[in-house]
């Protein structure tokens, strides 16, 4: 599904990712963990196609296609979804209109008919239950005045609506209390399927109690310094990042 090879990325001339190799297969859940400044968010943004990141070396192949050659909207239509760490407030743009435009853009790309108002609202009601979203959030502007938890839920709700093949959750757990975290995790878990891959980017292992990963990778100084199964995340929780980072530095 996703193959990252030797990926080097610079921001304003400074190298942030320094050779990432990562393969995620369909149906798998991978966690990317790491201390602040390790390059986690850069990885998420590069995969989603944000401007301002310069790929200096390496490749990213998604479903057999060159992901880096696509515009952000093409990636989204091809089934890549980024749940933002900081969902953006868009005053004046109604949440429902926005969602409908997004859903129909993706459907059109997949050769499906655009949904009419009735079918769309039916889908909305069904998917809102997944994250226990309140109705009135639909009538508001995108993310405007939403609490931190509501914003994150809205991200997962959008993910449910768009049914991506590859979902990247960028620090989706940050700023959530335990109840909100459970709701978000339940939402994510309900979307797990043999066709869908998940990349969970997080600083804390707490989220991984609820979204159980198949593989865990530790990112430090722009490289993956250690990979393992779920027990690696638990060990990080206990011992912190220091020891892995040091190991990585020695290996480099």
């Amino acid at each position, binding site marked *: 599904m996703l193959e990252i090879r030797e990926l080097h990325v610079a921001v304003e001339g400074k190298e942030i990712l320094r050779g990432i190799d990562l393969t995620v297969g369909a149906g798998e859940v991978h966690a990317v963990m790491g201390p602040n400044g390790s390059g986690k968010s850069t990885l998420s943004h590069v995969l*989603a*196609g*944000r*401007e301002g990141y310069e790929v200096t070396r390496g490749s990213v192949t998604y479903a057999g296609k060159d992901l880096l050659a696509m*515009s*952000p*909207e093409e*990636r*989204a*239509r091809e089934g890549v*979804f*980024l749940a*933002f760490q900081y*969902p*953006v407030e*868009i*005053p*004046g*743009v*109604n949440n429902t*209109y*926005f969602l*409908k*435009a*997004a859903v129909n*853009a*993706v459907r059109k*790309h997949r050769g499906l008919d655009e949904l009419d108002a009735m079918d769309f609202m039916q889908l909305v009601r069904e998917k809102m239950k997944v994250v226990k979203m309140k109705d009135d959030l639909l009538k508001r*502007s*995108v993310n405007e005045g939403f609490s931190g938890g509501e914003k994150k839920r809205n991200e997962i709700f*959008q993910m449910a609506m*768009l049914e991506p093949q590859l979902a990247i959750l960028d620090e989706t757990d940050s700023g959530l209390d335990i109840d909100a975290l459970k709701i978000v995790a339940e939402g994510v878990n309900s979307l797990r399927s043999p066709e869908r891959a998940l990349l969970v980017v997080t600083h804390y292992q707490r989220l991984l109690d609820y979204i159980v990963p198949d593989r865990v990778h530790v990112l430090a100084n722009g490289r993956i310094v250690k990979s393992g199964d779920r027990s690696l995340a638990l060990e990080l929780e206990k011992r912190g990042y220091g020891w892995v980072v040091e190991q990585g530095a020695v290996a480099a």
Partner: protein
Amino acid sequence: MMSSFTQLESGAAPGGELDGAVAHYVQEYRRLAAGLPGSGHERVRALRQWAIDRFSAMGFPGPRDEHWKYTRLGGIAKRRFRVAGRPAADVGREELAGFLLEGTECHRLVFINGWQSALLSDPGRLPEGAVLGSLAHILSDSPDLVEPWLVPAELRSGFEALNAALVADGAWLYLGRGVVLERPVHLIFLSVGGDEPQSSQVRNLIVAGPNSQAQVVESYVSLATEHFTNTITTIVLEEGAGLEHYKLQEESERALHVGRIDVRQGRDSRFRSHAASLGGELSRHDVAASLEGEGAECVLNGLYMVEGRQHVDFHTNVEHREPHGTSREYYKGILGGRSRGVFNGRVHVHPGAQRTDSEQSNKNLLLSRDAEVDTKPELEIYADDVKCSHGATVGQLDPDMLFYLRARGIDEAAARGLLTYGFAQDVIERMGIEAVRARLESVIVSRVPDAEHVKGIV
């Protein structure tokens, strides 16, 4: 072809051209004076004569005039607009259809080149104590009724003097004590073509008695391509009166528009002003509120959206003269192409106007590299126990917002369109009349980037 503004800026002496234009309008006054409304009354004649003399002395504002320095009047100086007399023929009803407020029953007056059309007007039934009619009729029949409000206390520019000298017609709305209009008053000012480009000189007078309440919509629209509108609306709100006032300027792209709204507010009166300037080659709007009674409240809400070589200039002025006054100012501008915007927001808190609470905000969105805006707050505060704030921004579409929309599959052009539309939303949402909101939305949507696609979304 260079625009006339550019030529003036590049060093041509504007004085000569503007002087020529002044002489032209003085000539027009001589041609028309005998047939202007109220010419049968000595006092009205004297007032008009005084005004044209003042105009002749003042001329048009020039680049050295502080409040006109960003707005060059080359377009007015170069063209010799014929001041419109009473139109010989009416306009067909079907041509009016596109300018009505859809689905909203209104007390409607229609003016063609500044003159009321009896055929197209439909004032409907007004409640007792309310009068809605043509100012020209009043000037002809009983000018004493309106004279106290007709003479401007001070002439701030030659345009006011020109208007006072040549005024043809306009609406006269009077609301007696406690009168509440359920339906909006809709005033449509339609400019039509003649053999030569026409000029309309419009004057509206709204006097709202104690505790009265109304909504008034002024729509400026054109069937002609090239014309010059010079309009003044004078509003008096007595104690406890409430007025929601709209000025929608949607004239053609070669139209010139200079207009003022002056409101005097009594104790505890409420004035909500909505101004939208969407058309015209050059549009200059002055909105001035004078809060002359304690506890008066004023909201100035406005939007300008220009493109090509359009030039729009808003000057607002709020005079807080008494304690406990509140003013809120929300202006937004969307500028594309090589357009130019000017916003000058003056707030003047007089000595003794304690507990004044004033906020002003002007936000501008530039859609192209060649668009420009000058925004300037002007606060003069002479009382010490007041709360006054102001803020102005000029910027492009937010890249984070753009990326967010694109990351959900919406293509870049549509995302730009959607964000541009979204930028104007809060201004529109402040407007109380649904039909006005719908009308403005449809105009805005039709002008944003990738309009076709955005129309399908919102």
